[in-house]
């Protein structure tokens, strides 16, 4: 099986994740998109690692990505909860403090 | 434990500084305790170090054999291709030239920490900066790699600037900036020479290892080292293999200069129409003379002293000035003994002039702290005079004078601080007959004043005597400075007696009178904490006045090695 297929899968997943991040109004939905993008990168890492069994770098870093993702999810959700409590909404549309 | 003694001495205050910085405000009362404990620990370790110091070690001060408690680790080393290698060591060690300074610094910093007890505002900042300052001062005295030395030297500036600028008196900003700029100018001069030296000096051991003359750095014997030196001299070592070095001990050895490099003896390089070595010596000399300070680079001192809070004045006068003198001995004189001889007349003259100029200025001062500041200028003149003599007595005298002035000026500034604490007033004319109200304080002041005016029995006398004997001997021994210089310089003794006794008479004798007496009619005599600072200081001043051997035994051999270096260069 050519490695391209997996890489393309990663690319597609990444773009779907990006699409979700860009279009969803709900903060948690955005988070889901981010998770998809992280997974896409993991697929790339593991796919190349498959051809380089001695070094296993890809797999190790995939593991790290998973860990970072977990940490990120935890912090992000905490922030979402806080933001929700503060603005009484998880709707990103209504949170526009950055408006110039 | 003794292996890393010096590192412990330096880094305990640094660690304490971090601890203070990290502790929450809630525990603000513990900062001063932490500072005192950390500096106390450093003091204890320094005393241990001094007691372990073997005063029988002899040798020229340009060989590492004359050092003790060496810690030498390569810090970083960068390959510069055809320019050779750039190598900086973490190199600490003590010999007779700096062991006394280390002890002095530890003592004064500790006393300074005690006198900081009453600091009220922004305590976290104060104590962490104070500890940072302590660490860099201590480091400065034991660092033997020029790069490391310079790092510590520069690192002192920053905390000092803030300590004066934030906790100082009314004109603190002016004083702080003046201090900063002055010292910075000195630093730049030193930096320039440092770069020049780096381009001229190589490390024979590392070069040998690099060029394959011997196996490893640790196995080098002295024969092999001289082999390397000959090879380099003959140009047999390719430039990629030459490891340039900041090692101050190597820099003091002529053989370690690359042939025909900018600052080597054989170099014909000229700067402003003068030999490059001479100019480099002058640059170092001026750089450290600013710190010392000698006429005409002294004007930062009165302002900095007057505006700084008492403990900072103590540290400033007690130790920071000594870095100027120590720096001259360790760098300027050691690296360029021939230039030192060439300029000795000038150095001696400025030493003599500083003595009299400082004393005359002190006579005219109205502010007691300014008076003490100018007396420091006067007393530091002795250091210059002693160094210029290039004799054993002169150089020992200079070091002894630095040590004793460290103790005495610390006492003097503490004394001034006691009064300022009580009345917020430093003008001499605002007081009279204090001896009635503050008898114990008067005793302490009199002791401090008499010690400072060079009365026998106090440490100041020994230093000044040695300087005089050495300076006078110089003319017939090595021909560095003429005989009339020390003779004229003795006038400083009369003048110092004049301004101290006059001050005593105006402030302490006569009828009791204090300006705005109503505001502080209840002047309190010394407190227990103040005794805690004065008693050990005075005890040490007297001890070193009666038993100078305690200190001179430690420094004697190294000073002899140092002066031999000078004598060799003159021949």
């Amino acid at each position, binding site marked *: 099986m050519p*490695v391209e297929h997996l890489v393309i899968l990663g690319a597609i997943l990444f773009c779907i994740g990006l699409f979700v991040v860009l279009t969803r109004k709900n903060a948690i*939905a955005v988070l*889901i998109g981010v998770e998809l993008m992280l997974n896409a990168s993991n697929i790339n890492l593991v796919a190349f690692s498959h051809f380089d069994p001695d070094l296993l770098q890809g797999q*190790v870093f995939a593991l790290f990505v998973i860990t970072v993702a977990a940490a990120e999810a935890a912090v992000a959700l905490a922030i979402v909860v806080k933001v929700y409590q503060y603005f009484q909404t998880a709707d990103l*549309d209504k949170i526009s403090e950055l408006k110039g | 434990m003794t292996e890393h003694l010096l590192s412990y001495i330096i880094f305990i205050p640094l660690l304490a500084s971090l601890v203070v910085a990290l502790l929450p405000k809630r525990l603000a009362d513990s900062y001063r305790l932490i500072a005192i404990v950390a500096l106390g620990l450093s003091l204890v370790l320094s005393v241990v170090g001094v007691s372990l110091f073997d005063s029988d070690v002899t040798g020229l001060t340009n060989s590492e054999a004359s050092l003790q408690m060496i810690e030498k680790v390569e810090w970083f080393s960068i390959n510069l291709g055809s320019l050779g290698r750039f190598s900086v060591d973490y190199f600490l060690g003590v010999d007779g030239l700096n062991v006394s300074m280390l002890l002095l610094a530890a003592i004064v910093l500790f006393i300074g920490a005690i006198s900081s007890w009453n600091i009220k505002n922004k305590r976290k900042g104060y104590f962490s900066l104070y500890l940072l300052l302590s660490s860099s001062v201590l480091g400065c005295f034991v660092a033997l790699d020029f790069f490391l030395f310079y790092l510590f030297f520069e690192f002192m500036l920053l905390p000092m600037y803030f300590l004066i600028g934030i906790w100082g008196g009314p004109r603190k900003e002016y004083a702080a900036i003046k201090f900063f700029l002055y010292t910075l100018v000195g630093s730049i001069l030193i930096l320039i020479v440092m770069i020049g030296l780096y381009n001229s000096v190589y490390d024979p051991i590392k070069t040998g290892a690099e060029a394959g003359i011997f196996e490893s750095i640790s196995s080098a014997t002295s024969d092999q080292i001289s082999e390397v030196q000959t090879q380099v001299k003959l140009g047999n070592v390719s430039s990629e293999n030459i490891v340039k070095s900041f090692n101050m001990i190597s820099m003091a050895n002529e053989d370690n200069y690359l042939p025909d490099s900018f600052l080597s003896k054989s170099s014909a390089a000229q700067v402003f129409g003068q030999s490059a070595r001479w100019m480099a010596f002058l640059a170092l000399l001026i750089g450290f003379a600013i710190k010392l300070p000698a006429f005409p680079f002294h004007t930062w001192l009165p302002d900095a002293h007057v505006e700084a809070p008492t403990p900072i004045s103590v540290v400033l006068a007690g130790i920071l000035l000594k870095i100027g003198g120590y720096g001259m001995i360790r760098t300027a004189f050691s690296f360029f003994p021939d230039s030192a001889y060439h300029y000795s007349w000038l150095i001696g003259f400025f030493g003599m002039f500083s003595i009299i100029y400082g004393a005359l200025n002190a006579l005219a001062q109205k502010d007691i702290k300014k008076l003490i500041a100018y007396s420091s200028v006067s007393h530091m003149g002795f250091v210059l005079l002693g160094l210029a003599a290039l004799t054993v007595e002169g150089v020992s005298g200079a070091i002894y004078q630095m040590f004793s002035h460290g103790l005495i000026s610390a006492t003097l500034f503490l004394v001034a601080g006691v009064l300022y604490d009580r009345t917020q007033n430093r003008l001499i004319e605002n007081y009279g007959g204090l001896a009635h109200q503050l008898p114990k304080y008067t005793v302490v002041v009199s002791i401090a004043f008499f010690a400072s005016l060079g009365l026998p029995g106090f440490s100041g006398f020994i230093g000044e005597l040695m300087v005089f004997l050495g300076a006078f001997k110089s003319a017939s021994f090595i021909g560095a400075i003429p005989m009339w210089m020390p003779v004229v310089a003795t006038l400083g003794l009369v003048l110092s007696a004049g301004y101290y006794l006059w001050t005593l008479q105006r402030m302490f004798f006569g009828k009791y009178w204090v300006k705005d007496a109503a505001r502080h009619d209840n002047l309190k005599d010394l407190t227990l904490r103040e005794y805690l600072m004065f008693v050990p200081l005075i005890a040490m001043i007297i001890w070193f006045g009666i038993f100078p051997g305690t200190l001179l035994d430690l420094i004697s051999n190294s000073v002899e090695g140092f002066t031999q270096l000078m004598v060799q260069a003159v021949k």
Partner: protein
Amino acid sequence: MTFATIILYCFIGLTLLSALYIAFTKNVLYAAFALILTFLGVAGIFMLIGAGFIAISQILVYVGGILVLIVFGVMLTNRLKGQQVTTPSYNKLLGLLVSGGLLFIFYKAIIEANFGAIKWIESAQPESPGLESFGMKLMTDYVLAFEVIGLLLLLALIGAVKIAAGARKEVEDAS
């Protein structure tokens, strides 16, 4: 084409389908459940290309951890009163355009790179290294990174708790 390859493509399909479902559903809760499927698909792919440990971690962390978090998040931030938790979307066209464009670029790049021709991939003998060697690697060559990442995780968790807890207090103060 071996059986394993077929299974692999099945997983790829599962992943893609569920991901697309996420992209187009409006219901956050459904999206979350679809995410489970995506994760499982990816895990399957990992398993089949010789990364068993990563696959297990994927299931444990993502399915067991993150998803639970997300679901709780959904529940905490939406007052569930019987109705569905939906999320409106905007910029749909633009988003589609941008992500489509990016995908196009990725695709072009991948095709042009021609990974199959790269020497070390060409010569490699795909095989599945054991869990043991993975463990050894982790505890020797990458031990520092491993420790650091552990610390990071710890700090992140503490931070998350602190943020969430602090928020409550502030709300109390505000009310």
